[in-house]
Structures are given as C-alpha cells and as structure tokens.
C-alpha cells in the first residue's frame, strides 16, 4: 500500500524550492504574529481563540492543504510526466495512497505543529487551547489533503477549485447560510477541538459523532474517488 520511491519523488516535488518557501512562510508568519501579539497584548484566552480560530484554522490550514494536496499530483498530470509513473508496475491505488500519505504528513507537519506552538506562545496552553487547536489543525489537514488530492486528479484547475471551496464555501457561504456549516471541514475540526478544550472555550456547529463520521466518510470517499479516477486517467492536451 506504500511505495517508497513514489513517496520520495512526491516529497521532492512538494518540498522543492519555491513550494517549500510558501510552506515555510505561512507557519512562520503565524509564529511571528503570535510572538508580536503576546508581547503587545499579553496572554489572553480570547485573543488566542481569535488568532488560532480565525487565522490559523480558517485560512492557513486550508491553504497548506491546497498546496500540499494538489501539489502532490496535479503538476505531474499537468505537464504529462505522470505517464512515466503510471507505466511502471505499481498499482494506481498504491500511487494515490502513497501520495495521499505524503501530502497528509506534509500538511500536518506544516499546519498542526505550528498551530500548537503558536498556542503555547500565545497563552501557554491555558484551558488546553493549544492542544485543541493543534489537534483540530491536524484533523482538518488530513481531510483537506484527501479532498484536494481528489481535485488534483479530477480537474486541471485543481488549485482554483480548491480555493473556491476553501474561501467561498467555508468562509462566505458558511457565514451566510447556517446549513452550509454542517458541511465544512473547518467545523468538523472545531468539533473535535471543542471536545478537547475546557468547557465552552471553543464552540462548534456540529456534534462530535457527526463530525467524526463525516470526516472519515469524506476522507475515505475522496481517496477512493481519486484512485478510481486515476485508473481511468486520460491525458488531455494543452488547451
């Protein structure tokens, strides 16, 4: 189920010069802002919630998910070099699973760990906020990686489609239509966070059991969909 060579190639594609610069810059910015806020405003639970919920979980995690999830496969399909990979005697579901695991590892590393440290910097894990948001970021990263990997296989405009989901659906529609919040990776992650943090520190729109079921269904469904699509992949020419 895991091919070391495919994994190595994917790591190198994901952590190539420019992509890595973006992947490092986002968490670094979060940490810099956290330090600045701590120095200027002091430790405060409300501030920590605002910054980790509003900035880290709502903006940074989806973006890292888009970069890692689509970056794991979309460029190869785009420039056609995927044919060299597909012509090797490696099952296509193994290719997808390996790339998914790498994307998940990279996005958890670049989103959950910085979120946890930002929480520590902001108020030293008071009311378990740092751990809660760290876990939420990790959970969200897993689901985002699977969704955006699927998008990367399905459409040539994977990055744009992923951004439309992350920005328009989760922020805009989610804030206008209450029902849309149930179908949001961010809210599912928040549900797990609210369970870990001390009572009432984090509020979520969905209950924990629903959130876990939806997370698992979406992650597995996206993976299965991506493997199925890669099995029947046809390479389109340049438009």
């Amino acid at each position, binding site marked *: 189920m895991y091919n070391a060579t495919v994994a190595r190639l994917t790591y190198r594609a994901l952590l190539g010069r420019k992509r890595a610069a973006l992947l490092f810059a986002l968490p670094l910015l979060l940490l810099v802002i956290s330090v600045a806020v701590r120095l200027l405003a002091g430790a405060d639970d409300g501030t920590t919630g605002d910054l980790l919920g509003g900035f880290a979980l709502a903006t940074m995690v989806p973006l890292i998910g888009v970069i890692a999830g689509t*970056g794991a496969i979309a460029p190869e399909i785009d420039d056609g070099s995927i044919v060299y990979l597909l012509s090797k005697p490696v099952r296509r579901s193994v290719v997808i699973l390996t790339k998914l695991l790498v994307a998940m590892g990279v996005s958890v590393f670049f989103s959950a760990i910085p979120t946890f440290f930002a929480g520590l910097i902001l108020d030293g894990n008071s009311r378990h906020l740092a751990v809660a948001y760290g876990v939420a970021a990790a959970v969200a990263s897993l689901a985002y990686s699977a969704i955006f990997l699927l998008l990367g296989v399905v459409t040539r405009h994977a990055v744009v489609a992923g951004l439309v989901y992350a920005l328009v659906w989760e922020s805009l529609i989610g804030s206008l239509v209450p029902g849309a919040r149930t179908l949001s990776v961010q809210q599912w992650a928040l549900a797990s966070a609210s369970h870990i943090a001390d009572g009432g520190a984090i509020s979520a729109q969905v209950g924990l059991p629903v959130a876990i079921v939806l997370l698992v269904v979406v992650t597995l469904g996206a993976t299965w969909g991506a493997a199925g699509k890669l099995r029947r992949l046809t390479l389109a020419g340049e438009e």
Partner: protein
Amino acid sequence: MSSEPALRDGSRDDSRIHDIGYRHYDGERLGRASIRRALFSQSLRGAYGLGRSGRSKVLPMILFAVMCLPAAIIDAVTVYVHLTKLPVEYTRYAIYLQAVIGLYLAAQAPQSVSRDLRFKTVPLYFSRPMERVDYVLAKFGAMAAALFVLTATPLVVLYVGALLAKLSFGTQTAGFGKGLLAAALLSLVLAGIGLVLAAATPRRGFGVAAVIAVLTISYAAVSSVEAIAYSRGNTGAIGWLGLFSPITLIDGVQSWWLGAHSAAVGGYGPPGVVAGIVYLLVALGLIGGSFALLMRRYRKVGLG
C-alpha cells in the same frame, strides 16, 4: 514609437522578418507601438477568455457575473423600497467582494505570464522589435485593465441604478467618481502584486496558490491583529495595521483621501494626515516596485 516615421520612409532598421528566401514582404512594417498595442489587447481579451477555448471562458465569466450580481440586487432593492441612498458605498463595494477579485487575479495573472514562461515563448517575443519595457507595460496594463473592468462594471451598474431610483445626481456622481478612482488604484496595486508573483514561476498552479496566499493570508493576519487591537482598546494601532495587506491598504487610502468610511474594525482608518500620506505613498510604491521587479524579472529570460 520614435521609429515609426522612419519606417514609413522605407527604412528597414526595425524589421526582423527574416528573409530566408521564401517570399518577399514589402508591406508596411508596424513598429513597437503596434506590437505593444497588440500584446495589450490580446492579454486583456485573454484575461476574460475571449479568443480562447470555451473552458477558459467559464471561470472569468462566472467571477464577472458574481461581481455584478450583488450590484444589480442592490439596485432593485433601492428602486422598489424607495431608499434615499444606496445601502453600499461605491468605495466599499470592492472591499466586500475582495474574495472574488482575489480569485480572479489568482486565476488570470498566472494565465497571462506563466504560460509564456512555461512554453518558452518569451524569447520569441523578444526576437521581435520590442523591448523588455514594452512587454512589461503591455502585460501590466492588460492585467490592471482587466481588474478595472471587473471592479468598475458593478460600480456603473450601481450608478445607473441610483440614477434610475432618482437619487441626488450630484452626490451619486461624486461617489461614483471616487469609487472609480479607488477601483483604478486597487487594480494597479493588485495587478502589480499578482504579476510579480505569477512571473516568478512557470507553473500555473503554483502561481495561483502564491497569489491567493499572499492576498488572503495578509488580509486574515491584518484583520485578526486589528480585532485584537480593538478588543484591547488600542484604536490608534488599527489605523496603521492596514498598511500590511493590499486590500486594507486601499481601504486606508480611500478612507483618508476620498472620505470613505473605513472597513476596518470600528471604522478606524489612518489616524491623521501623516498616516494618510504614508498609505498613499505605500500604494504608489507598491505599483512602482512591482513594475521594477517585473522589469528585473525579464532582464534575463533565456531558454533554460
């Protein structure tokens, strides 16, 4: 431009059509200005998918429609409910719909420059009688014009609706003029940022991610910190924090210069004249700086 009269005299110094013996060309040679115009109009059309495949029209046209739709709805409400003024300021409209503008820029800026880099067509452009500055001017101008079409069209819709609702002509015209000015500034700033990021890479997907990351991350960071400053009662700092993201920068410029109400938390725009001038200078500096960076980027575009 200066070479055009010389061309009409029959001078061949500007011609690069290589005579390799197939067929003679003795028509008029159009010079640099014409090339620049052609590249500008092709890039502008390309930014809306015109003259390209149907699939590449889908996204820009949808975003354009999404941009105009709220303005039409606001018009309808204003006319039927007999409001005495528009519920949205002209200058605030682009701020509300910044996500749409950001997506458009992220999708179309790499479209405009990354493909030339990826398919190595840039050296072909420069084998014609055109200079680096022509290419940069045409691409920059086209992207800014495309963004201006995107941001100014809904303002026109709003303005027409306001006049149909028989709102005060003077007030509406003044507000509309300010809105257009702000839209032009926004277009130039965003076009510069988008093109600099997109021209850094031949990968389209990466360019898209980089543009959107810079726009949304800077905005999210600035508004989180602003909200924290607001809750700590530090309202003076809010006015300065806006300098750190493109949209809040434009918001600061228009709230100081054009008398718009700031969209920052609590409506705290730049505090005082000095801050206002700093905002304007930073905005102009961004435009000039991105032009200079683009010029630097294309100083060496080899086949490598």
